[in-house]
């Protein structure tokens, strides 16, 4: 719990990024191009957040970076498939 409280500013930043991405997707639902741009920006920000977070904790490893990248790419794949299909 103490650890989470210490990480709270980090996670609030992450939640802010994700919330902004969600709002962007909702507000610009009529513009597929913008939705794709929002998805890429959000996924990139997520990976950057992960790298920064682990760098600050001094536990950044290549495997960790790959893990964030894999989650981001998977999320992007899901969003792209829906946006393009829609």
């Amino acid at each position, binding site marked *: 719990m103490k650890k989470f409280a210490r990480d709270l500013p980090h*996670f609030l930043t*992450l*939640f802010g990024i*994700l*919330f902004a*991405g*969600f709002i962007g*997707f*909702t507000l610009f*639902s*009529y*513009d*597929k191009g913008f939705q794709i741009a929002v998805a890429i920006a*959000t996924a990139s920000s*997520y990976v950057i*957040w*992960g790298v920064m*977070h*682990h760098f600050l904790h001094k*536990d950044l*490893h290549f*495997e*960790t970076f*790959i*893990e*964030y*990248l*894999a*989650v*981001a*790419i*998977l*999320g992007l*794949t*899901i*969003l792209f*498939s*829906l*946006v393009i*299909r*829609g």
Partner: protein
Amino acid sequence: MSVVKTLVHLFLPHESNNQKAKILHSSSLWLIAVFVIFSQIIISGASKVFPSVLGCASSISPEEVIRLTNEQRLQNGLNALSENSTLSSAAQAKGTDMLNKGYWAHFAPDGTSPWSFFINFGYRYTFAGENLARDFCSASDAVNAWMNSPSHKENILSPNYKEIGIGVVQGNLAGSDSTIIVQFFGARAGETVASIPVAKAQTLPSPSPVPVAALQIQSTPQPTIAATTVPEVGSASSILVSPFKTTKDVSLAVTGLLLAVLSIDLIIVRRRRIVRIGGRTLAHIAFLGMILAVVLILKAGRII
């Protein structure tokens, strides 16, 4: 390895998977992404091979589009638009033209403007506008999408228009089965506009191919009624599976499964105080939770 051991290996932190569910390993996540891509290729292929099974199931009626459009106008203190059969025929012809020439735009590749359909059907206007939508599964989804777009909303809520015509056509548009809705607005020449508190409409000297909802004030030349044969609105009630819905179901299943495994992982790792190298599970849950929320709100259909 027994079934239980396999399931534990896949979904729970255990010695066999280095205290991290195998499905959460980076290699597995890449594999799942490849699976999503392959599922899309299969859906695309199947919708071409079996167009009567996989396609856009649509039961959109022009009357419903007009009713919903007028509902929006009335809610905003505007007069309801009356249906004009000439405008409807012109809208139908525009939709058919898009299918025949394979374009999805306000202006045809050969330069044919939306307004030429008004003129060809003998509709002399002082104000004219066009909204286009495709691949929506219901009239309400299409009207809602227009209302969410400022330029299309401006058309729907313009006090300059008196009449409306809707064309709904179905067919193959540039290789994919589509349902196109053409919404034509107009005010006939010689008619006075009931109330124009604020002139929001743009006055354009000549039609310009802008990729947004078009709105134009222009007086028509002498009407020339073209003897165009307007095809009947197609019926796609036999289509069984929507590619979009299938994609959405696959996305929900993948995201839901990963979120469930991540949540269990978060609890077990904290309880057992497992120390391991890797990303923050809570961060992954937050990111995939956002993806899940977006998947839930996404709807099929495009507008221009």
